[in-house]
Structure formats: C-alpha cells, structure tokens
C-alpha cells in the first residue's frame, strides 16, 4: 500500500460498534511523547530525555438521533469505563494496518449551525497503551475458519501481544476464537494457541481483548475453532503493545 485516500476503506471501531458510517473527518495523535530537558552547562545544543507517551483521537461524527445510531451510542460511552478504539486507516482488508487504543470518552459536544448537519465532535483520551498491528480477521463468519497467517515478528519475554476481537453484527449462538502462532506459517511448525488468547463470544456488538506477555513466534493468525449459529461479522486485530 502506498499513499492512501481515506474513503471508502477507513474504519473507526469503538468497542463492538462500527462508527465509520457517521464519521466524515478524524484526527488521531497516536503518540505524543514526554520530552524532558536534560541540558547541563556543558551541553552544546539540546539534550532531551524521552519518558512516557500519551494519545488522543477526535472525530467529526454526524449526529443521528434514531435508536441505536451515533448519538445514542456516543452517549452510552459516558462514564469512567475504558473502551477499545480501533483505527484502520485507508484499508481494512485482512493484513492491513490496525491501530488499537484503550481510551475513555473525553468530550462530545454537539454542534448545530444554519445550513449544516448536526455534528458530534467526539474526542477520546488515551487511558492505556496503544498497539500498532494488523487486521488478522475481517469476515462474515459462518463456521470454523483459519484465517491467513501474518508475519508480525517475534516478541520478547517482556513484551505484550494483544488481540482485539469485535462482533459488529450477526445471528449466532456462540463461537470460540483463538489467536495462534507459528514460526514458519505452519509449513513445518503447526499453528498452536498462544496461551490464554482464546475466548467464547456469544453477544452481538461486543468486543473482547486478550493478551499474552512473553515470547511468541513470528507468525500469528486468527481462528474460529468452534461455531454455533448462522453468521457473525467479525473484525480481529493483533499487535504488540507499545
């Protein structure tokens, strides 16, 4: 992928809700680092020390006041709960880049003006780490499946690998997913479950985040290993927590 246009493939996902259909502009500052001045008398030029980082995200969201549309959903985000924000910039196919953040709703002013649509300027503030990874699954699931493996590199013993699985819609009883690993995309080393990165999902418009801290193999894939129901629109992302 080279230089990308924004439409129609950008996706903004908040928990198990696809906000994309209401967003006409967005800005994410994924990273703003703490920069501390470390200059001393003997310094020539600047000397800085890098500390922690913060992130924030804002979207121009069209106000739709029907049931289960943007206004009701954004209003449901108020309170102290964390939410999982997925940003797929310019592409959402499996293998595409995926930013995942843990956020809280900071503010959502609703603005009206003559001759204009009502806009909810939705702003999220970071409340946890951010991950830059890939879309491991983007499908309408109808049964068990193994998605294509992605080489995301190994992780060390101190790194955390996360996956966020969203069910956006569907009619199903439940399904079991796994995040699996292999050293060679299953050529000689069969894919196997990353310890703890599995769950049973039984609710539409839901989100599950699973993590593993420790060494993992380079190739990761999303798999549905048990299924009961008709269909489910599932988006799964995976990446290393920054």
């Amino acid at each position, binding site marked *: 992928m080279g230089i*990308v246009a924004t439409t129609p493939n950008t996706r903004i996902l908040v928990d198990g809700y696809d906000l994309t259909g209401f967003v006409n502009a967005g800005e994410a500052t994924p990273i703003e*680092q703490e*920069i501390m001045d470390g200059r001393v008398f003997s310094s020539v030029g600047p000397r800085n020390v890098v500390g922690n*980082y913060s992130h924030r995200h804002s979207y121009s969201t069209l106000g739709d006041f029907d049931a289960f549309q943007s206004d009701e959903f954004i209003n449901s985000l108020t309170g102290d709960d964390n939410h999982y924000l997925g940003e797929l*910039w310019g592409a959402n196919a499996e293998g595409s880049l995926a930013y995942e953040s843990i956020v809280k709703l900071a503010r959502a002013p609703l603005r009206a003006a003559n001759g204009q649509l009502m806009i909810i300027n939705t702003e999220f503030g970071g409340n946890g780490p951010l991950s830059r990874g890939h879309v491991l699954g983007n499908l309408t699931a109808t049964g068990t499946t193994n998605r294509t493996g992605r080489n995301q590199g190994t992780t060390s013993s101190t790194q955390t690998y996360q996956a966020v699985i969203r069910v956006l819609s569907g009619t199903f009883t439940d399904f079991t997913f796994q995040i699996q690993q292999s050293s060679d995309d299953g050529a000689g080393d069969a894919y196997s479950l990353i310890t703890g990165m599995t769950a049973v999902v039984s609710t539409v418009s839901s989100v599950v985040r699973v993590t593993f801290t420790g060494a993992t193999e380079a190739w990761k894939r999303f798999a549905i290993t048990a299924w009961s129901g008709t269909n489910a629109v599932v988006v799964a992302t995976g990446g290393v927590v920054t």
Partner: protein
Amino acid sequence: MALIASRNMDLTVNSVALECYANNFEQALEQNMVDVTTFCDAGPRSLVDSYTWNAQLSGPNDFASGALDATIFGLVGNAGVAYAFQPTGGTADTNSPEYDGTVVLQSYSIRAAVGQAITHQTRLMGNSALTRDVTP
C-alpha cells in the same frame, strides 16, 4: 544567489528518506535570549544562552512496510536517531549545505477527512547540536 524550489530538498531520518511523504517542512532553530537590559541601556540588550531546534513535516501518509507510518512509529521510545536535511538535495558542498543532528519524536498525528488523502503531521525535536556541513 541561487534560488531553489522546495521540491529539491532531501530529508533523511533514521536512514529513511522522508521527502516523498512531505509537502510541508520546517526546520527551526531558536536561540534562548536572556534579557540583561539595564537602566542605562538604550534599547534592549540580550545574551544568548543556548538553543533548541526542531523539524516539522506534514503530507500524505503511507502505511506500507518501511514507509512513513512505520518509520515514524518506530521512533517511539527511541533516545535519538540520525537526522539530515539537504535544502538543495545532493551531496554537501559550499553551495549545498547539509544540516545534521540527532532527533527524538515529539508527536505524530494522522488526519483523515471525506474526499481527502490521509495525511500525517510529524514533529521531531532536536536532541544534539545542529551542524551545518558544507564539506564535500
């Protein structure tokens, strides 16, 4: 005096050429001016303490492996990477300076809007002396 078009510039950060991801760029050096004006001075009087410098670039984003997004995000937590800016492009000489230093990532933004390309705004903060090299 040779006037040059901006499109000739070269920018390298952490060994990755970034000029193809920018349509706006600024390298700014700011000296710390300490006011020492006294009652007997006519007009202000200042001393220069030290200086800071930064670079800002913005333009179309690119999420491919090894491109803009991967390069800039890779600077998170990094204590400093090599920076080189050649206003005229090409090798440094007396008529083609190269500004060299070390930078850390201060902030990185991604922007999107209907009907427009996804863009970035990146701010790098100097983390060393900034040198102007004119040696071929």
